[in-house]
């Protein structure tokens, strides 16, 4: 880990009381302005901020970054410059320049804490836009702090240089985000366990992701950061497990003896909303698809009056999961769920309103689960239906003699296609009783039109 700057002592040397008093008074004037500007006008300083942030002011004054923003801040503080509402945009640039010029790790330590606080404030006003900006600034500041030997010196000064403490040091950083995630998902809210606060969930998830990505991208070897990355991964896994558990409970509570389609869809819509934000893995896709297929089969047995409208609705609600499952299976994951995935696809085909395009579903089902009985059968019937259409057209051609050359070609290819379809249908589902019948019909037409089957 290379130090970014010269070793800075975490604790500045003792100053004379007069100097300290002066610094305190100076902080009193500068802190409120700085807070307002840094937070882009979103946050007002608290009464005790000047006291707490006195050290920050001192630290800033010694940093190169102060050369960039110092004059502006001081002017704003003593009122000699007006605070322009649109100053925000050029402030962003100014701040970036200041960061580039350089802040000491000690100043960045303050920045990291401040931006985290601004983030919390923004969240309390559900201002996700600003919250995101502040979160990113905070993360960036933390990474700058930890990209120096500041932490080494700090830990040494505290007499706590052991590795274990170091690894757990940064956990509070993500604690608020993890609890926000769980709250957004109502994982601790037993009274209303299916309530979802999607914006909170999204923010928390993306914030954690951003952190993990930044840590990875930095290539750091700092144990505190590496441990943090692991912790994020662990929290994500745990959250997913809890979500699935809740899903299972919701499915369990469904009363199928008097099915209400909206109630049946609810768990799937719930899961869908969540996994719109969180990534879906094979396990999740399989679990949800299984549940949907299971209900599908039961519904068919129960034969409620509204089966034909209910099934498509159910399938639609669970569709994203099955689509994902399909992709996983084709990539080689999710062994053992092929059958279920295919079932789902067959249901979709069966309950499709228009008959055109149904075969596509059955084909997909077979791709996912070769030899799937139901899909094979359905596809076989589709082939036969297509064959039947062809036959209809072929029958309309009066005779071999009166065929024009163009027609002849078309007829020839039609009959070839028909044979093809018949073969496929047979291959798919040999025990289809109508195949023989079609074979005879086709043979008859071929003969009639002088296009014997050549093979």
């Amino acid at each position, binding site marked *: 880990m290379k130090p970014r700057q010269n070793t800075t002592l975490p604790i500045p040397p003792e100053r004379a009381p007069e100097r300290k008093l002066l610094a305190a008074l100076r902080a009193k004037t500068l802190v409120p302005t700085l807070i307002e500007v840094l937070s882009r006008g979103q946050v007002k300083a608290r009464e005790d901020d000047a006291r707490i942030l006195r050290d920050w002011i001192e630290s800033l004054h010694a940093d190169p970054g102060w050369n960039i923003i110092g004059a502006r801040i001081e002017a704003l503080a003593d009122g000699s410059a007006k605070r322009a509402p649109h100053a925000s945009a050029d402030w962003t640039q100014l701040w970036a320049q200041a960061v580039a010029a350089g802040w000491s790790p000690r100043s960045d330590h303050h920045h990291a804490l401040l931006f985290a606080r601004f983030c919390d404030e923004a969240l309390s006003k559900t201002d996700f836009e600003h919250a995101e900006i502040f979160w990113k600034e905070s993360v960036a500041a933390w990474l700058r702090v930890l990209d120096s030997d500041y932490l080494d010196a700090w830990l040494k000064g505290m007499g706590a240089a052991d590795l274990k403490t170091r690894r757990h040091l940064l956990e509070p950083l993500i604690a608020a985000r993890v609890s926000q995630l769980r709250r957004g998902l109502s994982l601790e809210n037993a009274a209303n366990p299916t309530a979802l606060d999607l914006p909170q969930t999204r923010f928390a998830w993306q914030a954690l992701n951003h952190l993990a990505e930044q840590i990875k991208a930095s290539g750091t070897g700092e144990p505190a950061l590496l441990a943090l990355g692991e912790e994020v991964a662990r929290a994500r896994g745990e959250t997913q497990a809890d979500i699935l558990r809740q899903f299972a409970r919701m499915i369990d509570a469904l009363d199928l003896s008097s099915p209400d389609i909206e109630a049946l869809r609810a768990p799937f819509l719930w899961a869908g909303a969540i996994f719109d934000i969180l990534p879906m893995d094979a396990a999740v896709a399989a679990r949800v698809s299984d549940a949907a297929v299971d209900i599908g089969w039961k519904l068919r047995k129960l034969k409620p009056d509204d089966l034909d409208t209910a099934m498509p609705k159910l399938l639609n609600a669970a569709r994203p999961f099955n689509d994902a499952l399909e992709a996983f299976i084709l990539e080689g994951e999710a062994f*053992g769920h092929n059958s279920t995935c295919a079932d789902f696809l067959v249901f979709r085909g069966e309950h499709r309103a228009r008959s055109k395009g149904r075969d596509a579903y059955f084909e997909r089902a077979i791709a996912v689960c070769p030899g799937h009985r139901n899909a094979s059968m359905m596809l076989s019937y589709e082939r036969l239906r297509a064959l039947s259409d062809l036959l209809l057209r072929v029958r309309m051609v009066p005779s071999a003699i009166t065929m024009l050359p163009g027609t002849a070609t078309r007829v020839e290819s039609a009959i070839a296609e028909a044979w093809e379809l018949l073969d496929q249908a047979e291959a798919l589902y040999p025990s289809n009783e109508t195949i023989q019948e079609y074979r005879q019909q086709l043979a008859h037409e071929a003969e009639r039109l002088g296009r014997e089957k050549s093979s």
Partner: protein
Amino acid sequence: MINRPAGIDLGTTNSAIAVMRPEGDDIWLLQDRLRRKTVPSMVGWNPETAEFVVGHHAWNRRVLQPQPIASIKRKMGSQQRVEVGPHKLLPEEVSAKTIENLVVQMRGFLESLGDLETDKDPQGAHRIHIDRAVITVPAYFDAPQIEATRRAGELAGVEVLGLLQEPTAAAMYYAFKNGIGDGNFLVYDLGGGTFDVSIIRSLMGEYQVLAVDGDNFLGGDDFDRRLAEKLRKHLIDQGYKLDLDVANNAEDRTRFTLLERIAREVKEALTSSEVQYVGRRDIFEDQAGQSVTLDLEVGRNEFEELIEDLIDQSLDACHRALAQSKEQADVQLGDIDYVLLVGGSTHVPRVQQKIAAALCGTDGARGERPLIDEPDTCVALGAAIHAANLSGVQWVQQDDATSPDAARKLTITSALSTRSEATHLVGFLEGALPDTITSVALARPNGEIASICRAETIREPSPQIRFEFDAVALSQAGRHDFVLEFCEESGECLASFPIFLQRLADDAPYRPTGSALSNPSVLAKDIYLEVAGDAAPDRFLLVPRGASLPTRQEFRFYTADRSGAVLLRLFQNRYPIRTIHLEIPPETELGAPVNLTIEIDESMTMIANGDVDGQAFSAKIAPPPAQAMRNWAQIEALLDQTAAIRQKLWGLEQTHFAKRVDFLVAGIHETARTDPDKLQVLARRLESVLEDYRNRQTELTPAYPRYSTLLNAIKRVVYRDATARPLGRSIEEWHTHLASIEKDADAAWKARDQEAWGQAFDQVQATWESLAQDEYRFQSTHTAEYVERLYLGLAHHCEELKKTVDAFTLSSNPEVENLQRREIMRLKADLEDDLEEPLRAIDTQADAATVKPKLAKLTETAARLEKRVSELATLGLVRR
């Protein structure tokens, strides 16, 4: 006068009382004329004077009838009354008499001291008055026992400022006496009836309790009993008839008690000698009427052998405590600075040796050996220190003419003594006060004003006038008298209090008193709530042991069934301490919120508040309903069950089980004859251990044969056609896959790893079901045969459900049992109405297309009923 609180050690065998001097530099300990510093915790009755006798007087009557009550502490918290002469008293009523006696004696003692000081204090403004106290309790006491102790104080007419855990008191005293401001203490407190171990840290004189463990039924009394039993056996060998039934025969009880008294004297003598001769003539008459004479020698070795395992149990508790302190605060044995021995029973040499061996030395604590220093009185002395901290120094002025409510109280919360040349003075005035006080002046006796400050009047929670002097100069060592004058704007003085401050000499010892920040009380045992687990009740931790008091925790659960009731069963460790039963409307939605707040204050009063679906409840944790006493037949049944369970276990499981029950079983055999109270306690403990094991699967589930069946079925389907691709995979792929599953399953089975076995089995089952669906899906489901099969299956399922409901074993807890009975009635009705009847009404010969949906619907109904049956075990419990 100065109202000063006392510290009271209410011990099993002996009690003591102490009061700290207002200056904070020394402690007065009650001593009688014979310089005895403790008072026996005995209460008896003198039939001649028709009066209660307590303390030494009661002890003097120990061989007379009626026998005075001893060791009542062991019964605190139970509702069992004891006979004291013509009266039947609750244990706390008995203890109240001991406390009352202590306070009266202390008042007398302080008066006699005060008589010596009249020249310094002619008006008696500084005479000491006592009506408040801190009473100590073993750290490991349960909530009901603690409540009973507080009540005892109140019944004695004392305002109980708080309850302090005994080991903490001992540590406080030790630190005070030796000027220790920082350090880690392990306090080993072995009293007459109870054993506590606490790990306490002192940081700049402030206390934190890091861990607590112990046993409420382990103490010197047990040593006595073992020795008494040995004496009894010796007497039997001598030919006396002494087949005693202590539980049921009063005379036998008396006989054994007399043997215990002798045993105690022998035990004490063996502290200083290797061998003790016991010669007593005509102690009592045996069961044949013969007069019994005891004549033997007891060697120290013999005695030590008898008590070895008891000491080992106590050391186990020490190690548990150390594990807890490591987790809480990273403090391990090597970090312990002082190992303190407290309580009369630590005089026994073997106890000291074993502790030294286990805890001190090269791998152990930092001290070379355990410390034993005033073991009989250090608890009371420590309690006095804590009492002083809680209350500050309080001066009271009372006009005789007016009512007591018109009294004024001045409380100083800062220390009265200091070693530096200036100190701060902080405090407040309460009582009948005019509104117009604006400043407070600190005046010397000659009228000169040393300092003035502004008075601050606050109204909440009660009217007070607060003041703070930042720097009061004390020029030389010694006592400095002042008068605090409360003045109004004009300067006129409306109230004045003489007080004093003290400057200690430079070489005066450092007296840490742990004032503002100390957390001397922690919760000793976990508090749990019984919740609905997946198939059986589960325990959810509400407040962990080690939680510092006061504490307040809020929880939210939700209802898990529609039984129409919610049962909140609270446990401390394994024992139920309170059940809150609420009836709620049966239509209440599943998942209705149940809010619960648990509050425990510093003196360990526990209150549970909450609401369910809008209905509020509040309950104080009172003693549980009197536990049913077990008779010997029931206990024998328990022992049989223990043996049966032990047989079913093997390997590590069996070793664990043995470790937990062996000593309980041995204890039961032993106390059957000698100690009926402890017998009940041990039986209860054994039962709760067995409960854990009864529910536990001792074999892996599902069973191995089932797994083989499924696996073979899979292989049959998969390998029958070389060209087929079941589930889209080729035969080779199946080969590999199945081989891997088999390997995992076998490994899990051999290692008895339930989790891994469960996973392997699930995989096999999932695979089979996928294959089976393929297999059976295209069997014709239109035939009447199929319908018939479905019907029969459903009918069979219905029968099974009925049988399960009928055979259900109801809970042993009466409230749960009631709920279960109610639900079973409803289930039976629903089975009849919703399943059986409709099933019978179905004509299986009718068109399959109409019959099948009906059957499908009934299958779902059956599934829901089955779910309700499985919920019977956890009825009323909430879910997290």
